[in-house]
C-alpha cells in the first residue's frame, strides 16, 4: 500500500473520530467503539465534502487539495476533544466478570463476522465493479470527474443535447446526489488511478464502522457488552447487508448506517440531554438526502417524529390531529405540498403524487405486489429471521415499549417508515419494483439497523434465567452493564 493510500484512509478515519469526540467527550460505556465506528462512517463523507469544496478544478490530485482542510478539521476537533475529555473524564468502573460460556459465544459470533468481512474484502479487492447501479448510477460521476481531471455538471438528456458544445455530461442517473461520487474521487486520486477495488473499499469500512458505532451507542444506551455483541452479530449477519459490502457500490448501506446512527444519537440526546448527540443526530440525518434521493423522505419522517416528541405533551395529540386533518384535506384536493430536501416540493393527492425529478406516481391498490412484499420479508433469505422476530418481540415486550418514551418514539418512527414503504410498494406504481424484487429490499435496508436497535433496546433487560418463584422471564427496570 502506498503512503498516499494509507494517508487517504487514516486521515478521514481520525478526522471522523475527532469530530465525534469533540461533540461527545463524555466517556460513556462503549465510547471507544462509538468513536472509532463513527470515524469510519463519517470520515469518508467528510473527505467527500472536502473534495467537493476544494478539488473541483483538479480531481486528479483531489486528495492533496482536500487533505489539508481535512487535516485542519482533524487538528481542531482533536484539540477540542482533548480539552473536553480532560474536563469531563469520569471514573470508569472496571468491567464485571463475564461467564466463560458467554465469552466463548461472543468470540464465536465475532469470528463469523470476521469471516464474512474477510470474504467481502477479497470480493472487493478482486473484482471490477459488478452490480448494475454501482457503475451505472453511483460511479459514473466519480469516474467521469476523475478521468476528466475536473468537475463537469450532469444534466438531463434534452439539456445535454441542446448544449453545443456540451460542457456537461448526461445519463440516467444525472440527478442522483453526489456525495459518494466525491468520496470515490478522493480514494481514486489517492490510488493514482481509477482502480475500482480501491474506490469500492470504503464499503467494507462502512460496514465495520456501522457495527462498531452501533455497539458503542447500544452500550451507552444501557445494553451489556455481551448483549450489545449479540445485537452486533444480529445486524452484521443479515445476508443482504453482507451482499452490499461484497458487491460494493450502492448507496443503500450508507443510508442504512446514517439513518441508524441518527436515530441512536437522537435517542441518546432524548435520554441524556447531551447536545453533542443532538448535533450528531442532525448531521447524520442531514447527510441522508446528499447520499440518495430517498433520504429526503427518511429525513422528513425523522423530523416529523422528532418534532412531535419535542412538543409539550398536552399539545402533541392536538397538533398531530390538526396536521392529519390538513394533510387529509390537502391530499383530497390534490394539493398537499411536502418539502423533500434535495428534490423540492412533492405534491401529494389521493390519486396522484408528483415528485420533482422522479416524476408522477399514480395511487391505487396493487394487490399483485403483496406476494413480492411478503416474499421479500418472510420468504427469501435476505434478512434471516429479522422480519419474523421483530413483530414477535414488539408483541412480547409491548408493555416496555409503551412504558419507555425513547422506545415508544423509536417504535413510532419505524412504524411511520414501514407504513411509508408499504404504501409505496402496495399503493403506487412502485409496486412493480416489489414484484421484481429490484427495490423493495434495498429500501427496507435503510431502516434495518434502526429496527435492530429497537429489538436490542426492547430486550436489554430481559433475563432468560428462571425467575425464582416467578412465572415470567425476569426483567429489571434498569440495565446492569457487565
Amino acid at each position, binding site marked *: 500500500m502506498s503512503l498516499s493510500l494509507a494517508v487517504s484512509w487514516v486521515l478521514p478515519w481520525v478526522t471522523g473520530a475527532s469530530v465525534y469526540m469533540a461533540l461527545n467527550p463524555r466517556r460513556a460505556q462503549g465510547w471507544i467503539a462509538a468513536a472509532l465506528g463513527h470515524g469510519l462512517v463519517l470520515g469518508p463523507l467528510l473527505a467527500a465534502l472536502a473534495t467537493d469544496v476544494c478539488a473541483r478544478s483538479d480531481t486528479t490530485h483531489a486528495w492533496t487539495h482536500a487533505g489539508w482542510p481535512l487535516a485542519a478539521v482533524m487538528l481542531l476537533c482533536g484539540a477540542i476533544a482533548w480539552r473536553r475529555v480532560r474536563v469531563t473524564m469520569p471514573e470508569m468502573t472496571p468491567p464485571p466478570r463475564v461467564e466463560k460460556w458467554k465469552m466463548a459465544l461472543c468470540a464465536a459470533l465475532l469470528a*463469523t463476522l470476521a*469471516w464474512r468481512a474477510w*470474504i467481502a474484502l*477479497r*470480493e472487493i479487492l*478482486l*473484482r*471490477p465493479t*459488478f*452490480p*448494475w447501479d*454501482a*457503475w*451505472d448510477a453511483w*460511479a*459514473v460521476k466519480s*469516474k*467521469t470527474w476523475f478521468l*476528466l481531471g475536473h468537475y463537469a455538471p450532469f444534466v438531463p*438528456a*434534452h439539456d*445535454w*443535447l*441542446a448544449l*453545443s458544445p*456540451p460542457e456537461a*455530461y448526461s*445519463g*440516467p442517473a444525472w440527478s442522483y446526489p453526489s456525495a459518494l461520487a466525491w468520496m470515490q474521487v478522493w480514494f481514486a486520486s489517492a490510488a493514482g488511478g481509477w*482502480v475500482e*477495488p480501491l474506490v469500492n473499499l470504503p464499503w467494507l469500512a462502512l460496514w465495520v464502522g456501522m457495527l462498531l458505532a452501533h455497539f458503542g451507542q447500544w452500550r451507552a444506551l444501557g445494553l451489556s457488552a455481551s448483549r450489545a455483541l449479540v445485537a452486533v452479530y444480529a445486524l452484521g449477519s443479515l*445476508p*443482504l447487508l*453482507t*451482499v452490499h459490502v*461484497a*458487491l460494493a457500490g*450502492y448507496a443503500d448501506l450508507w443510508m442504512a448506517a446514517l439513518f441508524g446512527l441518527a436515530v441512536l444519537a437522537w435517542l441518546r440526546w432524548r435520554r441524556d440531554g447531551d447536545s453533542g448527540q443532538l448535533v450528531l443526530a442532525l448531521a447524520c440525518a442531514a447527510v441522508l438526502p446528499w447520499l440518495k434521493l430517498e433520504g429526503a423522505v427518511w429525513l422528513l419522517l425523522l423530523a416529523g417524529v422528532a418534532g412531535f416528541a419535542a412538543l409539550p405533551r398536552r399539545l402533541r395529540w392536538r397538533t398531530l390531529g390538526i396536521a392529519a386533518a390538513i394533510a387529509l384535506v390537502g391530499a383530497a384536493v390534490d394539493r398537499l405540498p411536502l418539502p423533500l430536501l434535495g428534490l423540492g416540493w412533492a405534491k401529494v393527492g389521493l390519486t396522484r403524487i408528483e415528485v420533482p425529478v422522479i416524476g408522477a406516481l399514480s395511487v391505487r391498490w396493487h394487490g399483485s405486489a403483496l406476494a413480492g412484499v411478503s*416474499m421479500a420479508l*418472510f*420468504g*427469501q*433469505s*435476505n434478512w*434471516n*429471521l429479522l422480519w419474523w422476530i421483530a413483530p414477535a418481540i414488539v408483541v*412480547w415486550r409491548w408493555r416496555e415499549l409503551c412504558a419507555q418514551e425513547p422506545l415508544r418514539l423509536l417504535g413510532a418512527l419505524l412504524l411511520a417508515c414501514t407504513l411509508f414503504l408499504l404504501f409505496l410498494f402496495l399503493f403506487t406504481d412502485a409496486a412493480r419494483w416489489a414484484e421484481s*424484487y*429490484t*427495490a*423493495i*429490499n*434495498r429500501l427496507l435496508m435503510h431502516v434495518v439497523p434502526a429496527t435492530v436497535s429497537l429489538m436490542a433496546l426492547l430486550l436489554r433487560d430481559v433475563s*432468560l434465567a*428462571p*425467575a425464582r418463584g*416467578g*412465572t*415470567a*422471564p425476569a426483567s429489571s427496570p434498569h440495565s446492569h452493564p457487565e
Partner: protein
Amino acid sequence: MIRRGVCVAVVACIWIVLAALVAGLDWSTPLLPQKQIELTGSDFRVVIGAGVQDDRALRVAAVGTDGSALQARSIGSVRAEDFPVLRYRFDGFPRTLELSLVFRRAGEDDVHSETIPFPGDGWTSINLSRLPGWSGDIVELGFAQYATPDVAPASVAFRPFRFDQAELWSPSWRGGLAALSTSWFGYTPWALLSVSALGPQREVANPPPLLPFAVAGCVLSLLAAALILRWSRSRLVRRAVIVLAVLWGALDLVWLADLRGKHDLTEDIYAGHAWSVREQLAPDQDLARAAAAVRAYFAAQPVPRRILVTGEAKYVFLRLVYLLLPLNAAPLETGVAPPSLRDTYILVYRDSRWRYDATLGALLDDRGRRLDPSGSIFRDRFDAAERLEPVLESGDLHLYAFRAGQGS
C-alpha cells in the same frame, strides 16, 4: 418420560409432514423410487464442443465456437409425469459454468432448455415437475454448459470436467427430499439481482423457500412441546428465544456456506492476476473490447463532442456509456428531439433495430424512419444536410459520424 417420548415423536411428525407438504409428497408416495432410468455419461454424444469417453463417463474437453458445450442422447419415449426427479453427477464441474437441462418432447422440433442447480460434489437432484416444459413424452435429453451469465467471462470460463451419470426417478420420498435439500443448501452464483434480493435464481424450477418452512417447523414444535410437556408460559418464552436464536445461527451458517461458494467463483476467475488483467476479465468482455476500440479510435482524433449509444438491451448501452468514460457519451433516447446532431457520433452495438442505408447516408429503423442530424432524431423527411457515415466497424460495433455533404 413417556411425555418426553411422545413429544419427540410428535415433533418428528411435525417436521416430516411439513417437509412432505413443501416437497409435494403424500402418504402414498413410496419411500424409494419404483422406477429408475440410468443414463451413463458415456451414452451421451457430444453435440457442441468436444469430449471423449472415459470408462462409463464422458470427459468434456472443450466448448464450441459459441463458448458452450452440449451433450445429449435419445431416451426413447419417457412419460414426463412418471419421472419427476432428475439426479445428476459431475466430477470437477467448474463454478464458472452454468448447467442447463435440455430436452425434447415427442412431436416437437424445438428443444426446451432450463437452468438447473450447480452440480457440487456427489449427486445433485431437482424436482422436474416444477419445470414449465416437463410434460408429455420426452424423447431426447441432454446437458448444456456455458459461462455463468453476468459473472464469468467467457474466455476463462471453461475447464475440462467429467460427466458421470444422470438418473430419472419416479416419485419417492428419497428423491423429493433430495431435490428439496439441493434447492435449500446448494450453491448459487452471484447474479445482477443479488444486490437487490437473495433467492430468486435463474433456475426456473422455483423451489420453495427454506425460511417459512424452518419457522413453521420451530413454532409448531415449540407449541407441541409446550402442550405435551405442560410448560409454563415463561418456560415456553425462554425455550422459544433459544430455539429462534439457534435457528438464526443455523440459517446464518447456510448463508455463509452459500457466500463461500459465491466467493470461490470470484477467486477462480480473478485470484493471482494483477489489476490490469482483472480489469479485462469482466463478464462482458465483448463490450469492454468494443469500448476500448472506440477509445483507441478517438485517441487519434479530435475529442468528440458527444456520442449517442444504442444497443439491443439496456444493459448493453448503459454499460458501454460507462466503459467509454471519460468520452462524453449518453444513451440514444429516441423520444428526445435535439436542436442539432452535428458533431455527434452514433455508436450502434448489436442492435437489430437500426440498419445503415449507404445511399441515404442515414440510419433507418425497422419502420423506415431515419436518424438524421437536424430537427429530431426521428424524421420522415429526407432532407438532411449531412450524411451519416460509418467511421469504425468491427463485428457488432458500428460507429457513425455526420459528415459534410448533401444527404439524398
